[in-house]
């Protein structure tokens, strides 16, 4: 036998065999699990053991884009579309001119609970505020310290056992002392009597039923006070349906909340008895669609006094609608308060009624609410066909700019239940100039009482004027539900400070899961606002993957992994503590 020798003829062949063997070995080692690792996000986990005995976790997954000097961020509270994957807070770079503008720089995944139905955070964030994020269907509120933005630290959890008199936490208003008021849309944990912190008792029909309540929480999410929203004597049973029926009927299902600490006023609007509202099995759905706004005197922060419960009026469109559900007064989703102390009024908007209401003074026992704007007028401004109206248009986010100049409102679009084709009706965000209305003091003249005014705006000189209406086109069954004002401006030296003059707003396109006219395209979009109230989409705020304007939450990969599409609900502008004056 000839011995192997590199000097022998056939060396190239032998070399080929050896190289092939080596290559194959390498390929085998890597071929079946060929993983090309991306740069790993930096992970930090914070934990909180709540009163239900559960240890909750929040894990940051910070990408390299989160590095560098502090800047402005958009927090987005998003639920995974896959109920087996974690919900999370996405931290998006919201810094104009940042090279990573629109990039998701951190996702904060929550555990162990899944399918929270990520819903709202507070309406506006100020320096030092903690972040309150509600899980609507988990009956749980997560509280985060924001000092280390873009990282978040879980510092508290208000679990379902902490609020026996209410369920389904919805909206939050953080007070100057760091505590917060939260609306709980649904009834008590257990059907039957429930005793509130002030000793009063109301009888409810159970979780996600009625009556809802207001909860005051401390900075760690611990319940300070459960505050009744229902009148002790009950309300009109014809107007206020409850399933199962309650001996004392109630419409108390608070959704949106607005607070003026200067005026010691809290306003909440009643939405629906969520449990089984619009179920095809219930013939009388309209009585579950609330029409009321509640006002409290909050001089005693832990024991507010319910000053008034007002039914919103129907307007001129009601006579044209077959179903009560689409009348102007139906499903009062959001209230909004002006900010200046001398402005004593409040606004409210209806989700299925497509109208905006105003009362010039809500500190009195009987506020005089009237319709001051119909979404139909905004649709004309947005260029929609004439037969697209406010009826069933799912009006949502409503906020007054800090300078009391503008009122912002998102509309998801006339819904499939209403019967409008999705390619014809569209969502929008619009801006109203409300200065004349507020300046009218206690005696505004504006009143939408003719069909012409519903289509063209109020004839009275003090009626709100549409400065702009931006269509947000999507043919999904949802639309732009929520929004946020950018209450910060950049000053010299890369620093920020809070401002009264809003020059940018954002919208999120999702409402609630498993629904049509409730889901959406899952995008978060940015709009510039001029001093004259004109909107222009900020097309530089682009998705890092698609390159198209708006951040798309229907994506495969996140900093925390390939968990797939998510549903963005609450959005909020924030700034790193280190650069915020």
């Amino acid at each position, binding site marked *: *036998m000839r011995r*192997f020798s590199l000097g022998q003829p056939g060396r190239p062949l*032998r070399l080929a*065999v050896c190289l*092939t063997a080596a290559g*194959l*070995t390498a*390929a*085998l080692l890597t071929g079946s*699990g*060929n993983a*090309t*690792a*991306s740069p*790993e996000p930096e*992970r*930090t*986990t*914070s*934990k909180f053991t709540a009163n*239900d005995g559960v240890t909750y976790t929040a*894990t940051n997954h910070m990408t390299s884009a989160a590095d560098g000097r502090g800047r402005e961020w958009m927090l987005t509270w998003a639920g995974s*579309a896959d*109920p087996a994957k974690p919900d999370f807070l996405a931290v998006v770079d919201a810094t104009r001119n940042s090279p990573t503008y629109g990039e998701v720089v951190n996702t904060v*995944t929550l555990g*162990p609970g*899944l399918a929270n139905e990520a819903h709202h955070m507070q309406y506006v964030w100020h320096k030092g505020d903690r972040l309150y994020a509600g899980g609507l*269907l*988990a*009956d749980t509120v997560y509280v985060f310290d924001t000092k280390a933005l873009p990282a978040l630290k879980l510092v*508290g959890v208000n679990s*379902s056992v902490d609020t026996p008199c209410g*369920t389904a936490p919805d909206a939050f208003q953080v007070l100057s002392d760091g505590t917060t008021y939260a609306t709980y849309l649904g009834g008590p*944990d257990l*059907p*039957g009597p429930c005793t509130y912190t002030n000793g009063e008792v109301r009888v409810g*029909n*159970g979780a*996600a039923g009625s009556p809802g309540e207001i909860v005051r929480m401390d900075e760690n999410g*611990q319940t300070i006070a459960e505050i009744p929203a229902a009148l002790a004597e009950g309300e009109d049973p014809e107007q206020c349906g409850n399933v*199962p029926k309650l001996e004392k009927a109630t419409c108390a299902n608070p959704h949106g909340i607005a607070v003026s600490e200067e005026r010691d006023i809290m306003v909440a609007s009643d939405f*629906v008895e969520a*449990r*089984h*509202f*619009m*179920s*095809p099995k219930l013939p009388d759905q309209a009585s579950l669609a609330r029409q009321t706004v509640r006002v409290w005197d909050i001089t005693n922060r832990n024991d507010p006094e319910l000053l008034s419960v007002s039914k919103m009026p129907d307007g001129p469109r009601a006579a044209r609608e077959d179903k009560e559900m689409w009348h102007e007064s139906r499903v009062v989703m959001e209230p909004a308060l002006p900010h200046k102390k001398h402005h004593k009024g409040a606004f409210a908007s209806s989700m*299925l009624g497509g109208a905006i209401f105003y009362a010039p003074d809500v500190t009195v026992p009987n506020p005089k609410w009237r319709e001051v704007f119909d979404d139909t007028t905004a649709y004309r401004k947005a260029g929609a066909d004439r037969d697209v109206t406010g009826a069933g248009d799912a009006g949502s986010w409503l906020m007054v700019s800090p300078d009391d100049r503008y009122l912002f409102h998102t509309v998801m679009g006339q*819904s*499939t*239940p209403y019967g409008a084709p999705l390619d014809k009706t569209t969502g929008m965000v619009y801006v109203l100039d409300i200065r004349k209305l507020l300046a009218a003091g206690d005696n505004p003249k504006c009143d939408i009482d003719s069909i012409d005014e519903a289509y063209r705006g109020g004839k009275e000189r003090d009626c709100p004027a549409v400065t702009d209406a931006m269509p947000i086109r999507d043919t999904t069954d*949802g639309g732009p539900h929520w929004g946020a004002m950018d209450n910060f401006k950049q000053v010299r030296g890369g620093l920020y400070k809070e401002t009264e003059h809003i020059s940018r707003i954002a919208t999120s396109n999702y409402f*609630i899961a*498993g*629904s*049509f006219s*409730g889901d959406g395209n899952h995008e978060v979009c940015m709009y510039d606002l001029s001093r004259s109230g004109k909107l222009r989409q900020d097309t530089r705020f682009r998705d890092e993957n698609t390159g198209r304007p708006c951040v798309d939450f229907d994506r495969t990969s996140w900093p925390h*992994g390939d968990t797939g599409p998510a*549903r963005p609900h609450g959005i909020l502008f924030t700034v790193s503590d280190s650069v915020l004056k």
Partner: protein
Amino acid sequence: MIGSAETQVPVAVPPGGGHLALVQETPAGGMLPVLALAAVVGLVGVVVLVRRTTLPRPYLFASGAVCVLVLSFVLGATLRPVGGTDTTAAGHGTAHGAAAAAERPSPPGTPVLRTLHLGGEQVGVLVVPGRPGRNLVGIGAADARAGTADEALRKGQRRPGSAQTWVTVDLPEGSSTLRISAGGGTASLTVDTGRDRPAAPPALGTADGPECAAAAAGALVAGDSGPLTACPSDGLTADDSAALRATVRFLAGRGTASLALVSDDSPRGRKAAAVVRSAARQEGITVSAPGRNRPLLVTAGWAGATRVADAVESGRTPAQGVYLAPWNLARSVLTPSAGQLIPLRFTPRTARASAYAEALAARLPGEYPSGSGYAAWQRARGEEPQARPRLFAASTAYVPGTMVSADGGDTGGGHQHGAAGADWLPSGMIAPVSGPMREG
């Protein structure tokens, strides 16, 4: 009790580590042609060198072994079966996709779980107990029919708690063909019922049949392919008995003076009713007819509990909340607006319990997860339920835009965005409202 926070814990993640690490996978299949070519070239080279006797023995063995190994790997990967083989071509039914890949032939005389391609859809089919005689066939299609080869196909019907359409079919001993139609398509399924197997559990022929089938499915998707010898409603488990006692004690703690009770005639229902009455006596609670200020305790099965919840929702039966026995974690029971509460030894919306819901959705698309199915899943996997139950409130949130029928079906016109099928209660709340309850 005040909650406690821990400080942030930085986690050093090694490259590629962590279960949620961002990793781009390249499937091995993409490398197969290259590997095959290289292996063939290598083998030819080895053979040539052998013939020329230019390669020393150690190198010869090493090179040859590597090439043979690679070729074996390539052949194995290429020839790996991707679908079930027990569907025949009598109709249009074939097993497809990942779900089918997970399917294994059922041992004779055991429940059968298959996915068929029917009318353009992947349709799950469950046959229980898979033994000679009367069988329950659950099909994941609304218009499903089923029957044996030599009989007319019978129309199925929905049953409370399940998304399946159920047909009762008598199967002979040994191997036979089950024909199924839905969505305009027809498929056949070979079922081997075996011989000399014990009789099917009687509960399969009662209103508790779907719950029993759910338990069988839970065990199957957990990997247990053993015969079905009992149904959940055949008896009252010690855990469930203790949970019922704990619920009565919880109500006593709320000052409840009287409660109403609805049960059924199943062995479990009778025993459960006795437990509730006994516990109520101990707590000084009277058991009375339903009333507006009285909680209603339900120890009936899915069908009875669904009727009760519907009656409370409609106002026909007055109640101050519907307190369900643990086995009633079933969608049709939880969707009526009745103020339902249920003691559970697990938290449905956690990764652990979701694993069952996901596995079920993969193998039986559209079927609802259930407490009884999860209990069987846990038993099959050797998982221990929590030591003490908590009381959970359950409700379905119907809000503007949400047009989902009472048991989760679409009422038409809309679509379900996302994987709602794998959720315990889409658009619904299942939240704990108590700490661990004292059983004692």
